C-alpha cells in the first residue's frame, strides 16, 4: 500500500452506461478475461464449501489416512490429521473470501463516503478526515492489521474489521482527489445554482462519476485483503482453528514440506491464483472503464 495514491482522472469522464458494455470490455482484454476465469474458478471452489458439496469434512480428523499423497480419493492428498486437503483448501477459500469481501465492503463504503465528504465540503471535515487518513497511513498495513487483530477477541468478524480499517484510507484518497476537480465542474455548479441539495448532488452527480475508479480499487484491494488475511493466519492471528484457513495451512505445511510437499501445494496455488486473478481483473476493469478505450473495437 502506498501513501500516495495516484488517480487516473481520465476515467472521470466515463459515463455509467449499461453493465453489458463493461463486461464486454473486460472480456475483450486478455488480462481481464484470464483474471475473470481465474477468480471465477477459485470463487467456485469456495462456493463448493459454502453449499456443502465437498467430498470430505474439512475439519473431521481421520488418523488412519494421515499424510497420504495425491490419489484418486484425495486429489491433493491429506494432511497430518488425515483431513482431505482439497476440502480444507475449498473451505479455507470460503473463509478467506468471506473475511476479505466483508473487509473491503466496509473499507469501500466508509472510505469512499469519507473521501466524498472531505473532497466536496473541504474545510474542517476535509482536515479531520485527511488527518485520520494520514495517521492510518503512518502504519505499515500488515502491522496495523496485526495490532488491531491482537487488540480484540479473534473472530472472523473482528479480523474483517481490522483489515477494513487498514484499507479504508486508500478509498478516502482514491475518492477525494477526483471529487476535488468534480466539484468545480460546470454540471455540478449548475446543479448548485438551481438549488439542488448538496447531498443530492453528491449522490446523483459526483458518486456515479467516481464509480469506475472505486470499482477498480475494490478489485485490487480484494487481492491485498486476501494476502493480508492469509499473512495474519500464517502468523497465528487469523481465523481461529480448527476452521480451515489458507495461511494457517501453509504454516502447518512448512515443517511437512520436505516429505509431504502436497500439503503446501493446494493452499499455496489457490492463494496465488486468486491474487493473480484479482490483479488481472483489476487491470482489465481499468481498461474497460477507461473512456480512452471506448469505441476502439
Amino acid at each position: 500500500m502506498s501513501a500516495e495514491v495516484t488517480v487516473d482522472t481520465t476515467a472521470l469522464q466515463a459515463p455509467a452506461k449499461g453493465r453489458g458494455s463493461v463486461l464486454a470490455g473486460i472480456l475483450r482484454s486478455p488480462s481481464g478475461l484470464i483474471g475473470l476465469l481465474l477468480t471465477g474458478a477459485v470463487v467456485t471452489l469456495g462456493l463448493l464449501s459454502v453449499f456443502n458439496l465437498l467430498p470430505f469434512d474439512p475439519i473431521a480428523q481421520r488418523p488412519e489416512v494421515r499424510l497420504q499423497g495425491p490419489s484418486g480419493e484425495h486429489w491433493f492428498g491429506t494432511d497430518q490429521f488425515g483431513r482431505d486437503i482439497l476440502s480444507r483448501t475449498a473451505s479455507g477459500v470460503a473463509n478467506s473470501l468471506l473475511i476479505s469481501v466483508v473487509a473491503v465492503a466496509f473499507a469501500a463504503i466508509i472510505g469512499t463516503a469519507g473521501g466524498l465528504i472531505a473532497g466536496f465540503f473541504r474545510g474542517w471535515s476535509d482536515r479531520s478526515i485527511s488527518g485520520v487518513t494520514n495517521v492510518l497511513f503512518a502504519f505499515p498495513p500488515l502491522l496495523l492489521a496485526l495490532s488491531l487483530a491482537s487488540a480484540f477477541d479473534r473472530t472472523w468478524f473482528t479480523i474483517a474489521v481490522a483489515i477494513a480499517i487498514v484499507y479504508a484510507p486508500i478509498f478516502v484518497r482514491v475518492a477525494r482527489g477526483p471529487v476535488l476537480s468534480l466539484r468545480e465542474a460546470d454540471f455540478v455548479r449548475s446543479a448548485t445554482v438551481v438549488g439542488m441539495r448538496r447531498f443530492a448532488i453528491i449522490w446523483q452527480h459526483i458518486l456515479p462519476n467516481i464509480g469506475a475508479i472505486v470499482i477498480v480499487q475494490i478489485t485490487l484491494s480484494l487481492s491485498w485483503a486476501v494476502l493480508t488475511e492469509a499473512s495474519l493466519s500464517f502468523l497465528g492471528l487469523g481465523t481461529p482453528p480448527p476452521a480451515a484457513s489458507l495461511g494457517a495451512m501453509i504454516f502447518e505445511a512448512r515443517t511437512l514440506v520436505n516429505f509431504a510437499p502436497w500439503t503446501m501445494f493446494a493452499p499455496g496455488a489457490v492463494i496465488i491464483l486468486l491474487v493473480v486473478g484479482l490483479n488481472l481483473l483489476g487491470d482489465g476493469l481499468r481498461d474497460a472503464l477507461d473512456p480512452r478505450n471506448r469505441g476502439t473495437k
Partner: protein
Amino acid sequence: MRTITRHPIARKLAEAALTLLGVAVLVFVMLRATRGDQISATLGIEAAALTPAQRAALEAYYGLDQPLVVQFFSWLGNVVTGNLGYSSRSRQSVLEMTADSLPITFELAVLSIIIGLLIGVPLGMLSASRANSLRDAFGQTVGLAGLSIPAFLLGSTMLALSASMLGYNPNARGFASFAEDPWLNLQQMLMPALVLGFGLAAPIMRTARSALLEVRSMDFVRTARSKGAGPVRVQLKHVLHNALVPIVTMTGLQFGYLLGGAVVVEQIFSIPGIGRQVLIGIQQKEYAVVQSTVLVIALSFVIINLLTDLLYRVIDPRVRAQ
C-alpha cells in the same frame, strides 16, 4: 516573501508532527482496548482471586484509576523521555530490546531495497525497451508474480527447499549480527532479503516501466539522440535520470510494505528484528512491548516518508522551485 510557516518543508514537518501525535493516540487507544487485561495478563490465574480492594490498589498502582486523558499524557511523557516500558518476562527495557532489533530490521530493509532495485529497474527497462512485445510480457509476468506470491509462501518454500535439497540453512545456526560475523550474517540475511526484494521488485518494475516510457517520448530525448549521443548514454544519462523521481518515491513508499513484510519474514527465518519483537510480544501478551514497538515502527515509517519527500527535492530541482 514567504513566511516560515508557508515554507513547504516546514509544512511537511508540521504535518508529520501532527500525524505522529495521531499515531500516539491510536496506539494508546489500542493499548487501552487490551489493557483491561493487563492486570490479569501479569498475574495470570491469580487475578481471579483478587479482592475488589486489591484490584483497586493495583489499578491505582498502574495509574488505571486516572482519567484517560491524564493516562495518555503521562504515557506520552514517558515515551518522549525514552521510557518505553519493560518486558515483564525478560526484565529488559523495550528501549534496549529495540536498540538491538531495529538495526537488524534496518539492515534487512536496505538489503531488500538493493535487491528490489536490482531486479525491478532492469526489468522495467527491459519491458519499456519495446512496449507490448514479448519481452514486455515477460517483465510484466515477473512483476505480477512478485505482487501475487505471498512472502510467507515464498519464504517457507525457499527455506525448506534449500535446507532439504542443498543442506544449506545458515538460519538454523544462532543469529549472528553483522558486527560479530559479517559473512554468516550476510548469508542469514540473503534469503529473507530475496523474499522481500522480490515482492518489492513488482511495484518498482511497474513504476520504472511507465516512467521510462513517458520520459522516452519526450522532446529532450529526441534532441539528445539527434545530437549524436549513443544509445547507452541516452538511456542512462537522459532517460533513467529523469525517470528516477517516481522510482525513488515508489521505493520510499514501499518501506511500509518492508516493515510489515519483515514481521513475516523474520518469523520464518528466525531473525531477531523488530517485526519479530512485535510478534513475540503479541504471542506472550506483553502489550507494553507490542504497543511501544508498534509506535517505534510507525515513527520510523513517518520519518522515512519525510526523508523520501526531501530526497526527491534534491533529485528533481523542479520540485524545489514550486
